[in-house]
Structure formats: C-alpha cells, structure tokens
C-alpha cells in the first residue's frame, strides 16, 4: 500500500517535471513546478519528515514560485521555444544511461539498515549542526546583498543590444 502511494506521488512528480521542461510558456512551467513541490512535500511527510515537508511547501512552492512569477512579469513572457543545442536523442541517451547505472548500483543501498541514535530535528539543528545554522545565516545575508547589488545596477542609457 505504501509503495503504491509513493509510486503514484513520484509518477505524478515526474510527469509534471517533464511538462514543466517542455512547456513553451514559462508561466505554465511555474504552475507545474508548484504541483511538483506539493507532491514532493507529501512524499517527505510520509517519510516522517514533517518539518521539512512544511518548509518545502512554504518556501519552495511559495517563495520561489512567487519570485519566478515576478521575474517573468518583469522580463516579459515571450513564448519562444528554439530547438535545443544538444540534440534531443543524445540527451535522452546520456541521461538514460546515467539513470540506469545509478539505479542499478544504488539499488541495494536501501537494504543497508543500521540503527543509530535517533535525534529529533530540534536537537540536530540547534546543537549538533549549529554551524550549519550560522552558514545559512551567512548565506542569506550574502544572497540579500547580492540581489540588492544586482538590482540596483542602472542600465547604461538605453538597453544595449548585445552583438554576438
């Protein structure tokens, strides 16, 4: 029963992911992305990681999606879908090979079950991995600085067309 639930969730996620990649309009891709987020969040919840599921839903499906929509609105959603640079069959082949090999080698990994002490998220995050928290704070700072710096750059006069 569990397997089927997981299986359905993942099938949905993969379907939506594929649709997001091949869609011509970016706005529809953002909607697909939100659906993927929801499904993955459900998977995470069923795995037992409730807090991370909530983070995934609120941050990725919420914040990042809204940002994507904002960026698209600023940039303008011109529906262009040029043919890809790498030929599609070649891309399929190499990704297929990677997936098959990875699946084949990693398959037995799930049967390696070793009992370590189980910690709750609270203990893990604030005590043993407290350095991670500091790094996250530093990351957020630098990200904010970066965005402020980037968005405050004035365009030089008119928009210069790039001459390739």
């Amino acid at each position, binding site marked *: 029963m569990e397997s089927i639930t997981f299986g359905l969730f993942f099938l949905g996620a993969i379907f939506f992911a594929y649709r997001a990649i091949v869609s011509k309009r970016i706005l529809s891709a953002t909607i697909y992305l939100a659906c993927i987020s929801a499904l993955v969040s459900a998977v995470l919840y069923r795995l037992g990681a409730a807090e991370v599921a909530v983070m995934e839903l609120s941050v990725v499906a919420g914040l990042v999606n809204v940002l994507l929509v904002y960026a698209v609105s600023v940039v303008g959603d011109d529906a262009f879908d040029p043919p*890809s640079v*790498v030929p599609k069959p070649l891309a399929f082949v*190499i990704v297929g090979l*990677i997936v098959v*090999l990875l699946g*084949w080698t990693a398959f037995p990994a799930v049967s390696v079950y070793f009992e370590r002490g189980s910690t709750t998220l609270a203990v893990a995050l604030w005590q043993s991995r407290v350095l991670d928290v500091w790094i996250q704070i530093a990351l957020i700072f630098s990200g904010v600085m970066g965005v402020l710096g980037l968005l405050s750059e004035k365009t030089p006069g008119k928009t210069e067309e790039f001459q390739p």
Partner: protein
Amino acid sequence: MAGILVVLVILLPWVGALAVWLAQNRQPKLQHTLAVIFSVLAALASILLLGDATSDPVIQISLGSAFGELTFVPDGLAVSLTAIATVIGSLAVIFSMEYMRGDEQLGRYYFLVLFFIGAMTGLVLSGNLLFTFFFWEITALCSYGLISFYNDDPKAVAGGIKALIITQVGGVGLLAGTLVAFTALGSFQISDLLANSSALPAASLAFIAFSFLIAAAAKSAQFPFHSWLPDAMEAPSPVSALIHAATMVNAGIYLLARFYPAFEFVPGWRTSVLLVGAISALIASLSALVATDLKRVLAYSTVSQLGYMVYAIGSGSVLASQYHLLNHAFFKALLFLAAGSVIHSVGTRDMRRMGGLRGKMPFVRNVFIIGALALAGVPILNGFWSKELILEVSLENSPLWIHVLMLAGVGLTAFYTFRMIWLVFFGQERDALHYHPAGSPMKFSLAILAVGTFTTWLLFGGLSELLASTLPYHDIEVASTAELVTALLSAPATWFTLVIVAVGFAICWVRARGYRLFGGGWLTPLVESSFGFESLNQWIVRGVSTSAERLRATQTGELNWNIFGIFGGLLLVLIILWLGVK
C-alpha cells in the same frame, strides 16, 4: 641550520619575485634594487649551505600516503648546483640592472628570473621525485616566459614555444619514469630508488632509466632534441647566460648524475648516454663552425660542452662531469654576458657586421677572450683542467673511436672559438656601427666571472671531497687539486690534446688571414636543417599545435554543451563504480 638555509635558498628568490612584482613598473629603480638584494642574499645563503652539506634529509614534511614525504636533501650534488645557480643568478641580475634599463616590463622580467632561480634550487635540493618534477616544470615555464620575453617579436615567441614543447617532451619522460618507480617501489623518495634499484624488475628499471635519459636529453638540448637551444637565443642576454648556459640546461646533467648509480648496470644505458653526449658534442661543434649569429655560436658551444658532460657520465665519472659543469657555468656565463655587452653596444647580433671592435671595447674584449680561451681549453684557465679530466676518464673507459671523435671535437672547439673572437674583435671593421662602453654593473659581473674563470678549477679538491662524503650511493674518489694537476700534466694524452687545440687555432688563423671565415660550403645546408633533426623537432611542435587547435572546438562556451561534458564525466565515474561493484 642547514634546514633554515635550504628554506632561505628556495624562498628568498620567490619572495624577491613577489616583491618586485608588488613594486610595480612605475618604480624601476626599486625593482632593480629589490631583485639584486634578494638574489645576492640567496647566493650568500647557498654559499653558507656549502659548509653544511649532508646526505640526510633536513626537511621532512609528511604529505600523506599519496605523495610520500616532502624532503630536501642538501648533499654535495645539490649544494654545488645550488651555489652555481644562485651565484651566477645574482651576477646575471646585477648585469640586468644595466642591460634591461629602460625596459617597460621590468616586473615581469625580474619575476620570471627570480622565480626561476628559486625553482632551480628547489629542483636540485628536492629528495622527492614528484617535487623534482614539479620544480622541473616551473623552470620550463620560466624559461618559456623569458625566451618569449620580447613578445612582440614573432621569432622570440616561436622560439619560446619550441623550447617549451620540446622540454615538455622531456617532462613527460620524467613523469613516466617517476610513476613507474612509484608503482614498483611504493615511494617517491630518491634515496629509496637509489638504494633499491637492484631489487626492481629489470624491465621497469630499464624503462625508468631510458625515460630519464630522454628527459635529460630534452632539457639539456642533447641529440636528438638539440635544436631548441639555438632558437632560444632570442631571449635577453642575461637570461641566456643564466638559464641556457649555467643553470637550467644543467638540470638534465643533474638528473643523469643523481641517478647514475641506479642505472649504471642497465644494459645499453651507459652506451646510450655515451653516444648521446658524443653525437651532441660533434654536431654542435660542426654547426658552430658556420654560424653567423654571435649568440648562436655560443648556444651551439653550450650544446657541445653539455655533450662532453653527458659523455663523462657515460664514461663513468660523475665527478668529472660535475667539475666540468662548474667550470663551464663560469666561462659560459662570462661569454654570454660579454656577448650581451657587445650586442647591447653595437645593436646587432650578426657577426658579419662586426669586426675591428678591439680598440673600442677593451674591457669587454679582454674578458671575452678569457672566456673563449677557457672554452677552447687553454691551460691555466678552468676549462682546460676539466676537459682534460673528461678526456682522461674517457681514454680509460670508453671505446677508442669515440674518444678520437671527442678529440676532434676539441679541435673544432678551438677553431670556432678563435673564429668567433676574430670576427668580432679583430680584422677590419665591416660595418659602421655605433658603440658605447659598458657601464659599471655590467663590468662588475663580467669581472667577477672572469676572476672565477681563472680560479674555479682550484676547487676540484673541495668538490671531490664534498661529493664523496655526501653521496653514499655514488662511487667517487677523493682527490685533491694538486693530485689532479700532477696527474693531468704528466699524462701524455694531455699534451696531445694541447697540440690539437693549437692546430685548431692555427688553421683558423690561416683562414682568417685570408678572410675565408664565412661560407661553409657543404656544411651550411646540413647545419641549417640541424643535420636532419630539425624536421623531427618541427614535426613535434607542429603536431602539438594542430592538435591544440583542433581540440579548441570542444571549448564551445555554450552552457548546454558544458553541462553535457559534466554528465559525460559523471557517466564515466558511474561506469567505473559499476565495474568495481560487479
């Protein structure tokens, strides 16, 4: 104490390089001063190190199981070469104070020269083969940078690239030998290779021996890799003196000398070394007979003298080769710097346009003649003693026909040396050339080198004792200078050689009187194609360039293809893992 000196000797030039770069080209006087100070300090440190030579490693830093230990071993071979490199380096830097005055890219020049000096000392002091390779590559890089220093001149750039590619072929040989030694021995330490060489499987040892021979031949411009050195004369003269006469090209000789005990019993190796040395000495002497560019003659003579050193190692005497290396470094550096003064003065390198300069540059003329006589092997000057020692050793240990060829080489050396002196300084003035006398930095370096040319032969006793006491695997006999003098002067072979030198001078004198010193007839076309080997070297250089151009197509700069490349790598890793799991 030795440990600190070793660190100083390697790091002082590097710190100096950094300091010169930081001083920036707007303050040339500061750059000159800093370069001189740091190189002289390094020279002092290396002279102090001479007293502390030992065969034990003085610095040992463990680098984990992959790279072994980083050790520096200041034994006799290393400290003598270090002293030569830093002393002649500092003299070349002092000479550059005037030679490179007014140059706009002084920072780059001094940086490369100082970086090179530090790398050369690191090369000879290193006790870990991997680090020897590392320093080897740094010296190749600096050599390329300095040959192509005048990078607006396409000839200089072409010369630099040719030198780089051919010495890199040697570098590949060194690396291959190092890796095979590592797989056979489990260690990168030179002392391990020397101690356990007989325990290695014969095929591995032979591979290592011959790949090191290729590395040495490529670096020291020996046959069949000899054609890069004459083309490297586009470099500024202090660079030619330092790198292509006194230090970098000695790295190949160092390699052969260092590993001689390990390889001497590999079948065919000693004969190959003998032949490589002899052929180089001969071809280069022949080529010098017809060259018209002053520095090219000196380049050919360097190849020839290095051939004598290689030949000495092939004959079994590391001591003779190191002694000749010491003397050669001094008189060759003297010759290059003096030639540099002449060229700086009159503005041309073509000997056909010089002539009759003897009255106008008396000081340079005198030191040049001193250096040239040392090169030819005239008694009292240092070249005579070491050359005689080599010929003495070869008479005992080598087949007679090769010995005769080397004797012929001595005669040819005398001939082209006399030709060079005559064409530059004597005879009639062939072209109206502007000249100006050498300034004091130039004169200072030249004077010290000239004094050295008169006196370094006296160091034989000290050198043999230094080498014998600190090189446990080599079989070096200790002999004092007095013993050397008496042995050489009493051997009839010595007088025979002197006769040959005199004959060489005489033939040249006769031809000079008849103004028949130009035009080699049948010899010139042979020389210009480097006896057929230019095509080999051109083939290597062209092959590398075209394959580099073709591989450029893979650097598309397009994101999707770059990601494809990443995935290709990932696929490779996964395949390897999958094969390992099975």
